């Protein structure tokens, strides 16, 4: 089956409906044994040093993955650097399919985008809706895992992150993914609840720092809310495909995201928020809105290249967690 690369979460139902295999390039990159070299390779190709590590990693990962010749790239609603990523990959012979989330959440515009995608991949609404029903069943299991994280305290911060973030492509093999989720659900139910004193929320794009969650747990805290990862798992159960991607908060404005974040902070009894941004990312500007709107303490953590947490961020996290002890 033909593989298609993704730069972020898209209506993945359409890809499965077309009989293709979605591959979220972010997940391949961050799990790659030589991820630092991938970033170096992009810099050698001419990507600036003062640019997001994710975008450089995506560039090199796509070129390294021989089976991926087509990239579905989100031009609005994700990263402001994607345009140049598309252009530089096009130069290397990769076929690009653009997808755009309308800034104002306009239903008709979004419907048109999905329609165009259906056309480009030569499938149909009916087939996509059928896939949605199937994937929603798996998503419901992931939602349960999330619930067991904050309500029962039997799921680790990292597991919560990993299985939700994987819902962007379901590992390209939804059946296998579902089996894994079933297994994890069985396993966690046998655990004793974790007793961490401090409950944190994580907002922003997933971390490029590889030991992020384990380090937080070492310090006696747990992440009981992973904002964007949870969004990748489509937490609002709606039957309509367009509505599902309209309610999905991540690609739209910060205020919609903040409503969701505030609701979850209250529901999950979150003590403090970690706002993660990449170095050189436009989302650093949004930090000021987040700090103004949220009532709980906020720590902004900046990541650049992939790898373990640096000493400075360790000091900052430690002091932040100390605030709640």
């Amino acid at each position, binding site marked *: 089956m033909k593989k298609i690369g993704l730069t972020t979460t898209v209506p993945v139902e359409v890809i499965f409906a077309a009989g293709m295999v979605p591959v979220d390039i972010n997940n391949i990159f961050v799990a790659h044994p030589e991820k630092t070299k991938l970033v170096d390779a992009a810099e050698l190709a001419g990507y600036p040093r003062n640019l997001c590590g994710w975008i450089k990693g995506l560039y090199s990962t796509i070129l390294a993955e021989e089976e991926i010749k087509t990239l579905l790239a989100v031009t609005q609603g994700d990263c402001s650097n994607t345009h140049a990523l598309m252009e530089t990959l096009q130069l290397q012979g990769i076929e690009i399919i653009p997808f755009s989330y309308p800034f104002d959440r306009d239903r008709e515009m979004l419907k048109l985008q999905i329609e165009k995608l259906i056309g480009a991949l030569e499938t149909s609404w009916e087939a996509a809706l059928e896939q949605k029903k199937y994937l929603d069943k798996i998503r419901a299991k992931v939602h349960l895992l999330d619930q067991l994280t904050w309500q029962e305290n039997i799921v680790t911060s990292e597991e919560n992150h990993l299985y939700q973030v994987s819902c962007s492509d379901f590992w390209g093999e939804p059946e296998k993914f579902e089996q894994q989720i079933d297994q994890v659900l069985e396993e966690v139910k046998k655990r004793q609840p974790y007793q961490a004193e401090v409950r944190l929320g994580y907002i922003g794009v997933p971390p490029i720092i590889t030991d992020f969650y384990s380090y937080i747990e070492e310090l006696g805290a747990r992440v009981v809310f992973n904002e964007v990862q949870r969004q990748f798992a489509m937490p609002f159960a709606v039957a309509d495909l367009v509505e599902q991607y309209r309610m999905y908060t991540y690609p739209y404005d910060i205020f919609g995201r903040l409503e969701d974040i505030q609701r979850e902070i209250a529901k999950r009894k979150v003590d403090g928020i970690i706002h993660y941004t990449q*170095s050189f990312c436009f989302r650093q500007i949004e930090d000021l809105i987040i700090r103004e709107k949220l009532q709980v303490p906020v720590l902004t953590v900046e990541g*650049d290249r992939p790898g373990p947490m640096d000493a400075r961020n*360790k*000091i*900052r996290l430690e*002091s932040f967690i*100390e*605030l709640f002890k």
Partner: protein
Amino acid sequence: MFCGMDLGSRQVKIALLENNQLKDSYFYDTITFYRQYGQKVEGKLKIDFAALGIGKVERIVTTGYGRNTLDIWGGQKIPELKAHTLGAVWQTGLADFTLLDLGGQDSKVIKVRRGKMVDFQTNDKCAASSGRYLENMVGVLGIDLEELSRHYEQPVDLNTTCAIFGESELIGRIIEGHSIGSLAAGVNYSIFHRIQPMLRSFPSEKIVFTGGVAKNQALAKIVEIEMDCEVIVPPYPQLNGALGCCQAAAMSLDKGGK
């Protein structure tokens, strides 16, 4: 007697506290300290206290940059910002203030209420608002840090974000013929501009200013004028973290620790 050690990026600071009084203090260059007085024992750094001339201590508490990579043998570790908060509260007797600590590489702004840290911001990824920057700039100006700390009036504009490019910008200003006073004031103001957004996040009537850079009286004056508040530089600004460690040691004994 309690021993507090602040393992900083540039200097190791040691404070000895007896009967709630500072008994003695020591300052070492970080690299020299590790090389001459440290020895790895069972994965931890054992400090040769005899060689340092420090007698028997009841309890050692450490903090600072080094504690993330090193465990001090026989020592208890506490987070850096906690140490600085405890130190500032002990030194000033104040309970509500904003703590500004400017060290060798770090800039920290901590909101303290009722004697406890309730929020903070620190620099990240860039050390252009630190002591190291000032050291570089006085080198370019051909003056010492003491002279630098006299000037805050009629500052020249220095806009470069990068501390290294800042040097060439300063050279450009020197060529333009500005007085040393204006140039020095410009350097001091450029530090202030970098920390200003952090200070504005936590408005307080009083700012306690610590760290090696707190010896720069001109900068303290600039903060006072620009933030329109009282700036208090405690008696031992550089020892603040180490003194906080001593406090943590004392408090831990109060709580019945061993």
